[in-house]
């Protein structure tokens, strides 16, 4: 939660010679983080981030309390001026007021009636401070309630006393369908379970801890004011505030659990201000119902435990000093430490580790040394996939591929929306579904680049998400590739180089009728596919897990022949409908001296094959080569009716 603290307001409670820069720097090292220090209208404003567990620092007083504990650690004297408003009240009347409460949802209620408001204009100094904290100034009566909240950290509210029918609040939970209109004219239909004040006849006259209602709000015609403080169940407050999106400062503070013990001081401070600023007078007794004051909490720890977490020795004296400065009461019994936790930290401090945090942060994390672990190392991960993934990326880079990261969330036309997982709260329809393939995203990425290239090869190694009944989806890691401006032979060559040559995974390409997909298979099992789309873009996806399983880092060594091979080119005209792979296979098997065959050139349907003849025992003569050539010629003639050119 981000708040603003005024420096000159702060110094009403903090006696110190520290400069704003020092306050900002030292508090940030040991306590609440000051994000920015701003000079404004002759005052200095601290922009502070309050974490959810430190709502005790949200008011000027709580912030001053932290500063008074921290600054002396940096050799800067600082003293906290206690919040001690005058509690001797002269009341001029005995107006009735009471509350019928529910202690399971509201922990404390305090109220007092004031009359004779001789001034309703908010003085400049108060307006300035409210504005600096981002709070609008309305009139003195309402402004003082906000001022008390910002100063003490406990929200409070002013009611028009004459609008309270029976001068009683009946506290209950809302029922479904009940309606309430806030003071800023917004009407909400409640779903039930919200803490509300009933006037006794079923009408809701407040949404406590969150926002005031129109039917009880203070206005220019108000003669008598009920100043009221309620301390509520934080979970209910949060629920109501989030449900109807009423995010007032009061709600943001109350949902984090304010110390009920603070209520009395806050009320008395409010009375003080009404008397001072409005010259108003107290017209009732102070109503205070606090049925179950929290018992003093004690956490037990030890010097040994503290040192175990800190990693350094720390003197008992220092521990005592630090905890005392934070208003904790440490009691030593030999090396065991019992710590009484102050009420304003009761929600945050539960376990010994919490006590250690208090000591460590004020001791100064910057005072601790830096050491690396010395102990035993953990076992490595069985079959770790990462180094092969990196290797694959580098091979693809060498083959001209550009890696891209596309969003895992896609629109419904990228997949079968019935089968795919979708988000309950997407940002928009374009990113509602968890993708089940990479190709759609890659093709979109490719097309976004139209015109910037002659040929483009993009790739991505990412998960697709396949729904599994009753469990988390299968996260399948795929290697997706797409090519534009590439011919089929080029793409096939890239894949063959990657798989056959670099990863030592022998693959074959098999058509998968009736689809246009060409399967990439290892030992007849498909591990991926490629397809040429109508728009000329070629796409491919390969299962990364299959690559992990089939990858071989080393090939079996082939000894180098002692004798030179004979190499010659044979050209054939191959008509459409005859697969080249079959011709090459036939040539290879026609003669057992053909050690290799490649395609060295094509022109229209003329194909030139480079044939390598090798006898491991000797150098073949021209006649012997001719003999093998004839075998090939015979096979080609018989099987395919083809002749060399």
């Amino acid at each position, binding site marked *: 939660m981000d708040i603003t603290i005024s420096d000159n307001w702060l110094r009403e409670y903090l006696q110190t010679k520290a400069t704003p820069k020092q306050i900002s720097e030292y508090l940030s*090292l040991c306590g609440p983080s000051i994000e920015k220090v701003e000079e404004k209208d002759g005052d200095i404003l601290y922009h502070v981030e309050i974490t959810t567990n430190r709502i005790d620092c949200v008011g000027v007083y709580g912030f001053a309390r932290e500063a008074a504990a921290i600054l002396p650690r940096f050799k800067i004297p600082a003293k906290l001026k206690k919040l001690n408003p005058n509690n001797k009240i002269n009341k001029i009347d005995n107006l009735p007021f009471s509350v019928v409460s529910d202690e399971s949802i509201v922990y404390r209620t305090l109220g007092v009636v004031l009359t004779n408001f001789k001034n309703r204009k908010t003085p400049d100094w108060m307006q300035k401070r409210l504005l600096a904290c981002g709070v609008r100034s309305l009139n003195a009566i309402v402004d003082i309630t906000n001022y008390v909240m910002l100063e003490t950290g406990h929200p409070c509210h002013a009611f028009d006393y004459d609008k309270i029918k029976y001068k009683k609040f009946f506290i209950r939970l809302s029922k479904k369908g009940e309606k309430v209109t806030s003071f800023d004219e917004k009407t909400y239909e409640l779903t039930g379970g919200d803490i509300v004040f009933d006037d006794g006849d079923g009408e809701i006259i407040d949404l406590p801890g969150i926002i005031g209602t129109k039917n009880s709000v203070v206005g220019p015609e108000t003669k008598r004011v009920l100043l009221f403080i309620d301390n509520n169940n934080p979970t209910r407050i949060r629920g109501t505030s989030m449900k109807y999106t009423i995010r007032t400062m009061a709600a943001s503070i109350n949902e984090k659990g304010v110390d009920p013990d603070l209520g009395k001081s806050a009320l008395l401070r409010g009375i003080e201000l009404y008397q001072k600023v409005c010259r108003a007078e107290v017209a009732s007794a102070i109503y205070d119902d606090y049925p179950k004051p929290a018992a003093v909490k004690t956490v037990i720890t030890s010097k040994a435990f503290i040192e175990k977490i800190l990693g350094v020795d720390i003197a008992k004296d220092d521990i005592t000093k630090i905890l005392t400065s934070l208003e904790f009461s440490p009691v030593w019994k030999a090396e065991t430490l019992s710590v009484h936790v102050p009420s304003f930290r009761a929600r945050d401090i539960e376990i010994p*580790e919490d006590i250690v945090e208090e000591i460590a*942060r004020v001791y100064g994390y*910057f005072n601790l040394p830096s050491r690396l*672990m010395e102990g035993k190392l953990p076992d490595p991960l069985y079959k770790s996939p990462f180094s092969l993934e990196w290797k694959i990326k580098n091979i693809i880079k*060498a083959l001209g591929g550009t890696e891209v990261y596309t969003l895992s969330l896609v629109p419904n036309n990228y997949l079968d929306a019935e089968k795919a997982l979708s988000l309950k709260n997407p940002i928009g329809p374009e990113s509602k579904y968890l993708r089940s393939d990479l190709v759609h995203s890659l093709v979109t990425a490719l097309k976004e*680049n139209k015109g910037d290239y002659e040929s483009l090869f993009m790739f991505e190694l990412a998960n697709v998400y396949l729904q599994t009944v009753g469990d*988390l989806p299968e996260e399948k890691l795929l290697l997706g590739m797409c090519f534009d401006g590439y011919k089929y032979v080029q793409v096939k060559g890239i894949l063959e180089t990657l798989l056959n040559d670099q990863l030592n995974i022998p693959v074959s390409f098999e058509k998968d009728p009736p689809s246009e997909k060409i399967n990439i298979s290892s030992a007849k099992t498909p591990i991926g596919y490629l397809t040429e789309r109508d728009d000329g873009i070629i796409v491919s996806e390969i299962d990364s897990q299959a690559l992990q399983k089939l990858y071989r880092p080393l090939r079996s060594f082939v000894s180098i022949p002692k004798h030179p091979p004979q190499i010659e080119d044979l050209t054939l005209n191959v008509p459409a409908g005859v697969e080249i792979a079959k011709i090459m296979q036939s040539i290879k098997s026609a003669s057992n001296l053909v050690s290799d065959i490649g395609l060295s050139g094509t022109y229209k349907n003329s194909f030139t094959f480079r044939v390598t003849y090798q006898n491991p025992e000797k150098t073949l003569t021209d006649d012997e080569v001719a003999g093998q050539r004839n075998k090939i010629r015979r096979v080609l003639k018989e099987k395919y009716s083809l002749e060399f050119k």
Partner: protein
Amino acid sequence: MREELNNLKNNALAQIIDAKNEDVLEELRITYLGRNGNINELTKEFKNLNDEEKKEMGILLNETKKTIEEAISSKLSEFKKEKSNAWFDYTIPGKKYNLGHIHLISQTIEEISNVFEKIGFVRVRYPEVEWDWYAFGALNFPVDHPARDEWETFFIDTKPHPKFGAMLLTPHTSSGQVREMQRVKTPPIRMINIAKCYRRQSDVSHYPMFHQFEGLVVDEGINITHLKGTLDYFAKSVFGQTVKTRIRPYHFQFTEPSFEVDFSCTICGGKGCKLCKEGWLEVGGSGMVHPNVLKAGGIDAKRYSGFAFGWGVERILMMKPGLNIPDLRQLYSTDVRYLKQF
């Protein structure tokens, strides 16, 4: 034969002198000196000679061969000399070789992983689609706690699990902590979990998907000094020996104590600039693992303690001086003019 050899020699020399270029010269070499060349052809006729003549012709043949070889050789040198005197423009732009590109995010992940692996961390990658229990429940977040707000989570439209709660896209790699504890079972644990995370951030300067790396160390006697040591080691490995680190108080449900981690600004060196806060850059959060989290992972909190940290991969990348990427969303651009710069 003597006459034939002589004629051969003279023809060869004449042609060699006339040769216009190296290709022609090579053709001549094959013609005269090749396997099926003129000289070798002549050797076939040796069988018609007697021993005396064979010896004589043998010597003459070798001499002829040598003469032709030398002529070819010297003509080659002539060509070379011409070349070196000819105009050779060394300023000509070099041929372009188009390698592909590995994304900066992948490069950064690899770099981060290598740093931690050097000090014994085991790299893992835990699910992107997770149960509420692993992402929040086991990490000590009560149901409907305000602390959950900051994580702005995406929820999957599907039935919740009776034990593990709602299905969601994990907003942080911390969801891997309890999974790792369940995997390893008995410390020592040194985990570096690097994976995709998702947050439903409505403002323009954020991308809903990003990468985090989560470190978790659990063992006997682990304390705050080890956390400091580890992040100091990381900072110096990635940003150089002069970088400084510090930890400040913060709050996370799953750590106690919790810390905010800063590195001295890598852009201005700590002097102060518009990117940093008085010379410090916020890197991310960390803390000592909360005993409830150890318990959720089945680890004996009385015997073992640990620390954890979770930071953005993109954050580390943006902190690298000299990179000059104006904002994080650019990293997820699919524009190839941008990707080709990596």
